[in-house]
């Protein structure tokens, strides 16, 4: 079991956490997850905490997330500065987490298209994989082990590929209309989604572009050498004179990668 630490590397106990966040007193589990637990924290990184509760609590939330398809469709978030470090504390109901986990067991490869995870829910699934418990380790282990047995990988792979499909279709339309600038940006975004799917397929579940380069360096997939990735991501070889061929080459690169990603 890993020990949670604060931004300075000092051990962070549940007592110290509750001293700063008394709203979390009644909880089933409290865990940290994010760049700090991954060892990727930078000079101004915040700390991300998740409090799992059985019943809604009345808190003076800094913000409320509505990007949810589970019931109830909202999560309260407290943002506090503690010793000059920003703490983001999300309050999730156990029932909300269980709904996300249950959905990962539906044996239907197209479920991610009909009822996709929202970004917020996909992010929570990733966070659970990286989590370090301050309290309630058995709850965390139970959920984590369920996710390991589930179809989460397949769902997130298909979610990323579905996003890429839409952007590739846009790119094709933009090419046909002669809007090459917009097509170039669309295909670069499509490429990013395909890279995300490749990384998820390799076990790196982090959704979104923020840590894409770093994850690729860790996974180093045979299907995509670093130089090739970085060249497309930074559009290094793009020139207005050869825009069409760069766009079409990038579309083909996306398709070649898609053939290597197991979407079953």
């Amino acid at each position: 079991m890993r020990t949670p630490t604060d931004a300075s590397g000092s051990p962070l106990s549940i007592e110290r956490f509750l001293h700063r966040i008394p709203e979390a007193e009644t909880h089933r589990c409290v865990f940290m997850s994010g760049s700090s637990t991954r060892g990727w924290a930078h000079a101004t990184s915040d700390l991300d905490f998740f409090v799992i509760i059985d019943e809604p609590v009345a808190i003076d939330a800094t913000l409320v997330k509505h990007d949810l398809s589970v019931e109830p469709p909202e999560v309260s978030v407290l943002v506090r500065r503690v010793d000059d470090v920003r703490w983001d504390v999300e309050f999730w109901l156990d029932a909300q987490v269980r709904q996300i986990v249950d959905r990962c067991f539906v044996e239907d490869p197209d479920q991610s298209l009909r009822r996709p995870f929202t970004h917020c829910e996909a992010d929570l699934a990733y966070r659970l994989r990286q989590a370090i418990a301050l309290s309630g380790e058995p709850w965390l282990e139970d959920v984590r082990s369920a996710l390991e047995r589930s179809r989460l990988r397949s769902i997130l792979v298909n979610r990323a590929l579905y996003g890429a499909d839409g952007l590739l279709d846009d790119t094709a339309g933009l090419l046909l209309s002669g809007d090459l600038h917009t097509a170039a940006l669309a295909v670069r975004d499509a490429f990013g989604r395909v890279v995300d799917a490749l990384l998820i397929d390799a076990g790196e579940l982090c959704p979104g572009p923020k840590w894409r380069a770093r994850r690729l360096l860790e996974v180093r997939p045979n299907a995509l050498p670093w130089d090739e990735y970085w060249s497309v991501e930074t559009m290094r070889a793009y020139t207005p004179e050869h825009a069409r061929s760069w766009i079409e080459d990038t579309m083909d690169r996306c398709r070649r990668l898609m053939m290597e990603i197991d979407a079953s």
Partner: protein
Amino acid sequence: MTDGARVPKWSLHATVRNRGGRLEVLAGPDGWDLSEVGGFIWRLCDGRHSVDAIAEAMVREYEVAGETARHDVTEFLADLEASGLIAWVAERRLADAP
């Protein structure tokens, strides 16, 4: 240009999935689950291999007679073209010009 010198390429609207090693290709409502050989040919429709080159690759990979390979590749590509899944390189360039 002879038929064998023509170069097939995935159509702009084609999308693809790998389902446990088998390829599934789609362009609009038309989707195909490709056999292993179909997947082999599809992978080579990258705008760099002519029909003849694909048939030669098939002879090497599956040890079939040249004429058989050429016939099968030609027929399969015609089906893919009819479903909008591939286009021919020169034709696509002309069709796509704004």
